[in-house]
């Protein structure tokens, strides 16, 4: 079996140096998906960028998405010609772009795609994620067919959550990869 490729998909504004996603890029040499514009995210632009990156990869690919990129993965999966390459998606702290306080920023991202993901997935959230209520996160997980895991209060699960390189999260990713490899 080919060596798995892990793609890191940051959310709105990108992930800063101390964000666990960037720690994982440095420590494990995972591939970062760079967007043209992190500050003014356009749905079509982000979908095209992910499709472009995926076109160069061989399976199996693991997607590690944070915030807005969870919504990106849900929007990309039903339309992509490369979705079959994805072994599983690890979705962390989704941004509910339909929430009233995010409406202006993410106008091009609505409505959120709620089709079941065509690959295995795990959605991890925190009860005080400011960008998504617990009820909405549960709803997303149910629609997408994702295994759902709610952690203790960790905010948006980003650099401000002070989780460092988030070893617990990496252990969960490893578990997901092992489960996938063993066919569960």
């Amino acid at each position, binding site marked *: 079996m080919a060596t798995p490729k892990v793609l890191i998909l940051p959310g709105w504004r990108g992930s800063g140096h101390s964000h666990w996603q960037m720690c994982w890029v440095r420590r494990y040499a995972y591939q970062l998906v760079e967007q043209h514009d992190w500050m003014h995210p356009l749905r079509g*632009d982000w979908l095209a960028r992910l499709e472009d990156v995926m076109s160069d990869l061989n399976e199996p690919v693991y997607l590690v998405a944070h915030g807005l990129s969870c919504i990106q993965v849900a929007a990309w999966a039903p339309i992509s010609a490369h979705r079959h390459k994805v072994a599983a998606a690890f979705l962390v702290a989704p941004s509910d772009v339909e929430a009233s306080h995010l409406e202006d920023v993410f106008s091009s991202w609505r409505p959120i795609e709620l089709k079941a993901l065509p690959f295995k997935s795990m959605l991890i959230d925190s009860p005080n994620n400011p960008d998504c209520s617990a009820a909405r996160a549960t709803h997303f997980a149910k629609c997408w067919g994702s295994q759902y895991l709610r952690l203790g209060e960790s905010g948006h699960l980003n650099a401000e959550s002070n989780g460092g390189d988030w070893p617990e999260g990496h252990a969960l990713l490893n578990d997901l990869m092992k489960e996938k490899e063993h066919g569960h």
Partner: protein
Amino acid sequence: MAKIFCVANQKGGVGKTTSAVNLAAGLAKVGQRVLLVDLDPQGNATMGSGVDKRQLELSVYDVLLESASILEAAIFSEKCGYHVLGANRELAGAEVELVDLERRDQRLKAALEVVDKDFDFVLIDCPPSLSMLTLNGLCAAHGVIVPMQCEYFALEGLTDLVNTIKQVHANLNPDLKIIGLLRVMFDPRITLQQQVSEQLKSHFGDKVFNTVIPRNVRLAEAPSYGLPGVVFDPSAKGSQAFVEFAKELVQRIPTL
């Protein structure tokens, strides 16, 4: 009935967008009702028409995905005197999103049929690649205006485009034809350009427009002010040439 023309060339950097925005402005200046459709995710025709691509609430992307009509998405550029159906990087997503949809190459054509009586000319600024976006432009158009520099490699790009037009004509749009070749960035002092220009005329005859657009610094400067040269500096030679070209095109319409 609106005349719909793609401004296309599969070679990049030949002055497609400059030609599209200046022809739009020239046609508006001679009293024509014009819609400029930006089909390039770079959005240069949008910005070059005085419309900020970052502020677009609706764009050609929404039209292609049928979530908005042209009348809803097009913006009238007061400074330029024509309507703009703008684009930004969002449009790149249409390449992915259209793949599985029905009539994916006919989306723009269908949308333009609704506004057929609202405009005299629709100009479509196509990206240089042969993509689903370009295909939508070619399927919607009556013909193609090909801006080209009179240089050796320009002829190679032209061969690719002619082959593409033949294929689209045969399979998707029997109306499609080359309307004409527009010589741009022309410098008569350069012998090679004169030679290539003569070659073009001998090969393509009256398909080569009489008007020649000279190399002109004011045309090059205008995009940084978010305007076509025709609006930015109407007295510049390049601007005057585009207005002449607009008149030539209007005169040619009955013969097309």
